[in-house]
């Protein structure tokens, strides 16, 4: 199976997974396994608060970056945050 065909199937599979109720969370879909185990550990220990959220965010970001490392530069750029652009309308202020 060539690469392009594999990507098409990946896209279809990804699209179907996103529609599963209630959908897969970002840290599960793109993050590292540590994002899940650490959440579980904090939950068992009954820990919560802003410092816990920061730790989870860091682990999530490391995991996502690890996933993106295998992607092309175009995919990496397309994941960057940017303002939604509106179409240009002639004579509108």
């Amino acid at each position, binding site marked *: 199976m060539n690469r392009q065909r594999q990507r098409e199937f990946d896209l279809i599979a990804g699209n179907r997974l996103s529609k599963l109720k209630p959908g897969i969370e970002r840290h599960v879909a793109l993050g590292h396994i540590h994002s899940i185990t650490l959440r579980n550990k904090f939950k068992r220990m009954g820990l919560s608060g802003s410092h816990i959220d920061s730790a989870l965010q860091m682990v999530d970001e490391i995991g996502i970056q690890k996933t993106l490392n295998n992607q092309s530069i175009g995919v990496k750029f397309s994941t960057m945050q940017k303002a939604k652009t509106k179409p240009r*309308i*002639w004579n509108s202020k």
Partner: protein
Amino acid sequence: MNILKPLKNEFPPSIVNLLLKEGQRWESQNQWYEALGTGIIAIIGSARSGKTSLAYSMIDYVIHHSNRPIILDSFPQKVIDEGIPDHWKGRVSNKSFTEIATINEPALWLVDDTGAHFNSRSALETNNKILSRSAGILSHFGGGMTVIFTTQSLSAIDLSFLRFTTIAPCVRWVDEDVIHSERKEWIGEVKHGNYLLSQVSKDVRRRDYFYSTKDKCLVKSNFPEFLKKENNPIKADLMSRPMRYHKLEDKQRMIGVKEQKKKRVKDE
């Protein structure tokens, strides 16, 4: 019926550039331009997407802001006599594109539903041969002519319209299942235009805007007063679907139906 004069910069520069007469100047967004006055404005859109009404808006603009004569290609005389708004009278005539060499004025032509007159499948017909020869020298005839043509797909029309001179394509709503059959050179622009239209338009057939590919922007599309059925339903229909008012033989000639030869019956 109130006749509102369109603003001089109602359309973006690439369109005004072709609508005004050669050398006419206009200001738009603090910049002065000088009109080229010759070229082709292509309006692409599915049936009932407002192609003809946009073409009429452009003609109305020309009526108000220039003294160019208007020629409605192969329009029925009934439409010229009874359909056109009063302020167009004296400026509009109906001639066939085959007569282009006889016109010695910087006319603006409207060729409505080009697929019927200049179909890409009839490349060797007289109309298409005249078109392919004249498209490149539009600027020479009558001091520079402009042609507005409307079509449902650029695949259906003769390539001569797109090979020569300056063109300013305008994209209206195209049915999403029809876009796949668009010419490969234009499919990207048509798809992009339709995507942008879907972002801003609330109308089912996106008739409140069109996309100017040369200016890379959407343009608000005003529906002409004389096309509103509330004002005059008969005139509105005459202008909205003019080809309906052709005689039967003219309609048959347009779509290429020829009368079958009568079979000779031998006397017994």
